[in-house]
């Protein structure tokens, strides 16, 4: 009960801080967009990965595929065909989510490192398609100057409205993930993660369970794809390339891949890191790579897991000396 309360207090404090952020940050012009909005967008993308890893034990690099599908649909339909966002955004999210059924059908037959490789190949496949299919995607140049959405007369081209829109989306999706984990579906899912054979022998049909979880994560990733289009205002093959995939992976692993909050902790860290290092952009990729390797070598549970790791090590030492 005590832990429950502490958790609830943490959530309230984090949300309050997030709401106050545009008013308390120094240099809001820069930090709200390059720090806050960016971190929330990346955090939602990473959340789709964390959800799957935490509840099914599967690390997927295919999330960028779903983001790419929805992002490209919004970009192409609004820039090339003048389709209104009211139509294109729901359609794009639906298409991204449904593509999860196709990928899931194949990928969920595999596990562990096979699943990881297969989903990586899926994303790289979209990258090469986006590069080759110039008539559709404009190839390497990508689709630029995508207009920003106007909802109820509010123009989201401005920094602060976009920040609050993203924050709202992130809170709703995070709460939805937490809620799903508490339902009987979420509990069955953890059973599949820990011992699929036992779940099968108990009479569960595990494939539909895994499929629903996978498609749900594709749904989150599709939303992140649309958020990316509105935040960056362009989309190109690099938006779904190898470096971006690894970026997302770095966020998840550095934050803590078995914690939902880890997605946002990692995203904030990476967004701040990017913002600080942006005068030295040529070193960014290498610096993230080194950070990633160091975290994997020393703290594989990520930042969220450091306290647990330290506690476990202390307990082990105490046990050894006793």
């Amino acid at each position: 009960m005590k832990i429950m309360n502490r958790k609830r207090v943490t959530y309230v404090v984090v949300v309050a801080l997030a709401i106050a952020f545009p008013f308390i940050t120094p240099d809001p012009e820069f930090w709200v967009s390059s720090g806050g909005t960016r971190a929330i967008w990346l955090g939602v993308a990473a959340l789709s990965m964390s959800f799957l890893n935490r509840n099914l034990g599967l690390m997927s690099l295919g999330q960028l595929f779903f983001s790419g599908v929805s992002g490209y649909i919004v970009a192409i339909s609004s820039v090339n065909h003048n389709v209104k966002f009211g139509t294109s955004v729901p359609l794009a999210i639906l298409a991204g989510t449904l593509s999860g059924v196709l990928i899931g059908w194949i990928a969920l037959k595999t596990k562990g490192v096979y699943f990881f490789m297969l989903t990586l190949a899926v994303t790289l496949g979209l990258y090469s398609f986006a590069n080759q299919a110039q008539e559709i995607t404009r190839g390497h140049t990508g689709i630029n100057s995508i207009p920003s959405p106007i909802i109820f007369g509010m123009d989201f081209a401005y920094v602060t409205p976009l920040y609050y829109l993203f924050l709202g989306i992130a809170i709703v999706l995070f709460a939805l993930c937490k809620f799903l984990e508490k339902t009987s579906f979420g509990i069955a899912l953890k059973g599949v993660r820990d011992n699929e054979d036992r779940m099968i022998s108990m009479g569960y049909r595990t494939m539909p369970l895994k499929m629903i979880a996978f498609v749900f994560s594709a749904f989150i990733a599709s939303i992140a794809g649309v958020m990316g289009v509105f935040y960056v205002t362009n989309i190109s093959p690099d938006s779904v390339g190898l470096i971006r995939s690894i970026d997302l992976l770095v966020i998840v692993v550095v934050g803590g891949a078995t914690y939902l909050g880890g997605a946002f902790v990692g995203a904030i860290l990476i967004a701040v890191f990017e913002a600080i290092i942006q005068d030295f952009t040529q070193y960014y990729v290498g610096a993230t790579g080194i950070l990633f390797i160091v975290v994997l070598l020393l703290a594989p549970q990520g930042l969220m897991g450091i306290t647990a790791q330290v506690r476990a090590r202390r307990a082990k030492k105490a046990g050894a000396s006793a």
Partner: protein
Amino acid sequence: MTQFIFTFLNGLTLAGLYFLVASGLTLIFGLMRVINLAHGAFYLLAGYISWTIADKTGNWLYGAIVGALSLGVFGTLVYVLLLRKFQYEELRVALITLGVSLVLAQAMLAIFGGEYYQTNIPESLTFSVPIPGLGLSYPFFRIFVLILAIVVAIGLWVFISKTRYGAIIRAGVDDTTMVSALGINVQAVFIWIFFLGSLLVGFAGAVGGTTNSFGMGTDGDYLLFSLQVVIIGGLGSIGGVAIGSFLVGVIGQFATGYFPTFAGIITFAMLILILAFRPQGILGKKQ
């Protein structure tokens, strides 16, 4: 008809290159369960090194030898320093190698810049051979790549399934403890496998850097090709790599030649289709 034959030959010789690239990946995985996702970066690094040496010495073969050997040493260092401790945590190892590929990509960009490079074909091999019955000719060097791939394939197969060293390697993978008890240093065996696998991709980088141009982004492309090849053929099987390379190379070339816009999608659809029926790949063992 001419286009058909040329596309087929291009596909076949490209399959030879894919085999050289992916055989190292599958060798290391098949024997050690370690998946090296810096494989594409290794390929590109070897391309740069071979290009530099060939450019300085004017000798293609020196470039290829130095490229292959330096990658062999580099790969071994990565294994010993970063991976060995976690060898049995498959996913963690895969993630670390992705980190290595990021650092490598950055370093190579800093040194070689964003331009594209291509090593010159050795002069003695620049001739073309006539295709009988068509009155056309085909560059010999591309056929040479295919021959190299076949030689490497047979060599690997003989080494692993017919020699004493191969037997030690296979035994060391099946039961590390037992083989150690027989007085064989299994750690040394693993180091040699990693050396050999990296040497292969280094050699592939030297050869592929001569038939195709390379530069920023090539690492991702060849990582994709290798993954497609081993996923289709079945991870860990040399025969599977041969089949996978053939399919990805030939079908990829036909797709690029006849439906350029959808080339990526066609290869991808093939991959999905094969996995739908055989999730472990064509020659892969059940997981």
